[in-house]
């Protein structure tokens, strides 16, 4: 229960941040320079959207899914635990790709993206080190 509550709180923080970035994207603030140079470079790059959809919006969806599955898992919905694990693993892999893009393609790191990466790493760490009681079906 505590494990999934902690995971839900982390996912909630990620959801807040991803929602913020999505709003910034939609209001056009990533289409101009004026804030942080590195963030402008990353958030304004072609990697920041997929088929016109901002990556931050996909991130918000990922965090929301992780949050929802963690809440359901905390209430002993057995299948939610499996869905939670797969959601976190998917987010972890996407995060690794985005870190690669920032380091080797764009040569710039955005602090928001790094914060999000830290949250996903935390979720992944929790998932991997989850006590067996939290993995067990009720």
């Amino acid at each position, binding site marked *: 229960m505590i494990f999934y509550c902690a995971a839900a709180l982390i996912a909630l923080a990620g959801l807040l941040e991803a929602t913020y970035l999505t*709003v910034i994207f939609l*209001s056009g603030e990533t289409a101009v320079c004026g804030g942080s140079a590195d963030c402008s470079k990353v958030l304004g790059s072609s990697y920041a959207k997929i088929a016109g959809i901002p990556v931050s919006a996909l991130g918000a969806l990922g965090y929301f899914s992780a949050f929802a599955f963690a809440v359901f898992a905390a209430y002993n919905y057995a299948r939610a635990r499996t869905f939670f694990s797969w959601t976190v693993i998917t987010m972890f892999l996407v995060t690794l790709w985005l870190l690669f893009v920032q380091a080797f393609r764009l040569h710039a790191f955005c602090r928001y993206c790094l914060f999000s990466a830290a949250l996903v790493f935390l979720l992944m760490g929790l998932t991997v080190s989850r006590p067996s009681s939290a993995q067990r079906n009720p």
Partner: protein
Amino acid sequence: MKSSAPFVIVALVAALAIGGGAYFYRIRRAANPPLETSKEVAEGIKESGHVLGPPGAILTLEEYGDFQCPPCGKLSEPINQLQKQYNLRVIFREFPLAMHAHAREAASAAEAAGLQGKFWEMHDLLFREQAVWSNSNDVRTLFSAYAGMVGLEVARFNRDMDGSEVQQQVDLDQQRGAFIGVRTTPTILLNNQAVPADQLRPDTFPAAVEAALKSAQPTS
């Protein structure tokens, strides 16, 4: 029987995320009101600056740009195409941001090229090669090479870059921009009406220009 609490919690968070996001979006849009130059300022601006296209064009596109700003670079070619396609009057004004290490030097390079009548050639080259010189530790050497490439007298170009005439022009453009409320680049005005930031992407900007053209057409 399982509790309905998780459904309530998840639905509540979903509603808060969507509602909060929409509210925040409205706040951000309101925090960036569209610029509109007064007639006096607009007239002053038209007197100087680098102008491309006929004076009697139906639509004047005025850009406050930073050569090191990636969004400005991405918009450079679409603007060139739109200028040719619709015979627009394009005005470029320097607005180098302090956040970009070489933006001021690049603005000086463009202005120095302008003193030899090659502003637009240097403007296009600086945007085209943005990724190269932006990460260079020796931009002056690169800019000198660019000067040679566009057919400038390089020794004069190097002198002019540091000269007071060039520096004053960059300062003047920045002061004008700051006066009308420019804070970010690119800031683009179409017949003195600022284009919202969300329409400044290469895929959305042509539609903004076409809409401005439509509204600028004289009604018979």
